[in-house]
């Protein structure tokens, strides 16, 4: 078995929250373990506030974890990374308007990184930066442009070029297409797909958009309230989702085709990460919840490479039935 490109092991991230005199701990990421093979694209999906972005920031070395480790090619990265370690994992941000320094030209942003890591000498820096721009589908003249002269999609391409500039071993794209128009989203997704072929790119693709994940990812991890509840290949997970939360996400995602599993849409908000429910953290919203879901945290149920943390994994038929019986489901679909 090959060494995984990225291996996240039992990662916890906590933020102190002070409301009045009460000090609480917000468990943004609460024990996440996941692997990524070289030149694989792993999607991470989940609702807002489930800890996706925090996980991305920890992987990219921008936030320090409370506990657990991030390993790159089998070597654990320390919480405070060296310049070389920092360089190895690059992030693409959600809002291309906020992720580029408005005072610097595109060329200045790129060459600054090329210098820092001694990638090319000054004589060839422009040539190299223009190569990068062409690689992400921008004309070479974008070198002299400032961010405000570019469209959202073009800015995001610059953001990708910036991530590629330092020749990283892994890219973390945090909602990299969420802020873009739909047609531009497709173009950026195609760009990722192309780069993956031409550069053997390894990528963590974080999104709440299941169709985007389906389009470019090899495997998907579903996150709920700081924990991964299901991991599997895109095909397996989308055709035979094991976790009721995954089924609910699939059902809620607008699609032209019929989804394999029909489940009632979820109601209510996810619980606050300040007060994580006992047992299975999904049980308050779960149509399938039984007694032990309130008490015991579920262990992984495996079907080959496809794993689900649910006491009633893959009980697909029951879901539909239970959904119909579920009071909330009835209220929504009388």
């Amino acid at each position, binding site marked *: 078995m090959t060494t995984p490109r990225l291996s996240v092991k039992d990662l916890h991230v906590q933020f102190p929250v002070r409301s009045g005199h009460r000090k609480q701990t917000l468990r943004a990421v609460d024990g996440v373990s996941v692997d990524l093979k070289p030149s694989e694209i792993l999607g991470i999906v989940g609702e807002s506030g489930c800890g996706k972005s925090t996980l991305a*920031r920890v992987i990219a070395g*921008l936030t320090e974890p409370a506990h657990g480790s991030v390993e790159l090619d089998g070597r654990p990265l320390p919480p405070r990374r060296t310049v070389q370690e*920092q360089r190895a994992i690059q992030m693409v941000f*959600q809002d291309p308007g906020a992720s580029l*320094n*408005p*005072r610097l030209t595109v060329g200045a942003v790129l060459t600054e*990184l090329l210098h*820092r890591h001694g990638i090319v000498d*000054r004589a060839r820096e422009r040539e190299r930066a223009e190569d990068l721009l062409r690689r992400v589908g921008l004309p070479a003249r974008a070198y002299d442009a400032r961010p405000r002269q570019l469209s959202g999609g073009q800015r995001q391409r610059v953001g990708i070029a910036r991530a590629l500039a330092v020749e990283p071993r892994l890219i973390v794209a945090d909602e990299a297409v969420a802020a873009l128009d739909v047609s531009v989203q497709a173009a950026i997704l195609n760009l990722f797909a192309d780069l993956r072929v031409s550069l053997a790119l390894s990528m963590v693709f974080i999104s709440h958009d299941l169709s985007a994940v389906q389009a470019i990812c090899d495997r998907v991890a579903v996150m709920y309230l700081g924990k991964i509840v299901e991991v599997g290949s895109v095909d397996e997970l989308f055709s035979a989702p094991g976790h009721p939360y995954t089924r609910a996400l699939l059902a809620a995602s607008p699609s032209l085709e019929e989804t394999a599993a029909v489940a009632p849409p979820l109601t209510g908000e996810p619980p606050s990460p300040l007060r994580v429910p006992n047992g299975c953290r999904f049980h308050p919203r779960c149509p399938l919840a039984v007694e032990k879901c309130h008490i015991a945290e579920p262990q992984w149920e495996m079907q080959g490479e496809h794993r689900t943390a649910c006491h009633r994994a893959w009980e697909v038929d029951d879901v539909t039935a239970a959904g119909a019986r579920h009071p909330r489901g009835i209220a929504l679909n009388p």
Partner: protein
Amino acid sequence: MRSYAGRLGSLLPRATRLKLDRKGKFGAAILGAYVLVAFVGLYLVRDPVQQDLVHRLAGPSWHHWLGTDSLGRDMFSRLIAATRTDLRFGFLAMLIPLAIGTVLGAVAGYLGGIADSVIMRLADLVQSFPVILLFLGVAAAAGTTDSFLLLGPGELPIMIVFALVGWVVYARLIRSEILRVRNMDYIDAARGGGLSTPRIIVRHILPNAIPQTVVYAVVDVGLAVLSLASISYLGLGIPAPNPEWGAMINDGQIYLAQQWWLVVAPGIAIAGLGIALALIGDGLDDEMRR
């Protein structure tokens, strides 16, 4: 290898490299006239401190364009000579607090924690102190101090008070802008790219945090001149006989009913400078919002 000047240019806030809009240009033209007068005016007029008690309080004439004051000094010459004093003082009274405030504000905003608390409590302390008392305190010293570097006779103690008090506004401005900018994604991107902390501060944070301060600094020159004029008017400013607009208004006010131009002329000079600087500041602000 880029030139040193080129590198410096990229560190400058965009505001200082931008073109101004029409009203900004109008303001710049007025300011330019003031600066020109400040530099060459002194060589074109008569001695501004030469007394002529025989011709005191003379009305405007071909010989004395704005008449003479109570000691027979030519008002026009004094007005021109005062331009240099007030402009030089105004710019220094902006630059020195700007330098102090930028450093302290940047430290407070970037480091946070104890440094932030100490600097900001110091700012509160300074702001709650009645400034006029400080001026009273240094007024005695002002009469006996000589020129110091760019400062004329008697100006050093006054400038020290301006520096002690003026940095607070700049520190607060810079601090709040740094707090805003340091949370931007492009700062994370710079950190993620492995750039050094000094480089992130100098190239990514400060150029985005400073422009608002530049706008204020331009207007602040006018405010400083106005403050100097105010304290001179109270008799606490630049000591006689050196001409200064506020002191001239003070000298002339008892003759307001007969020789009103003794007050109005320096008043217009102050107002004109203030308006010019306000127009430039406004123009810069508009340009940066674009």
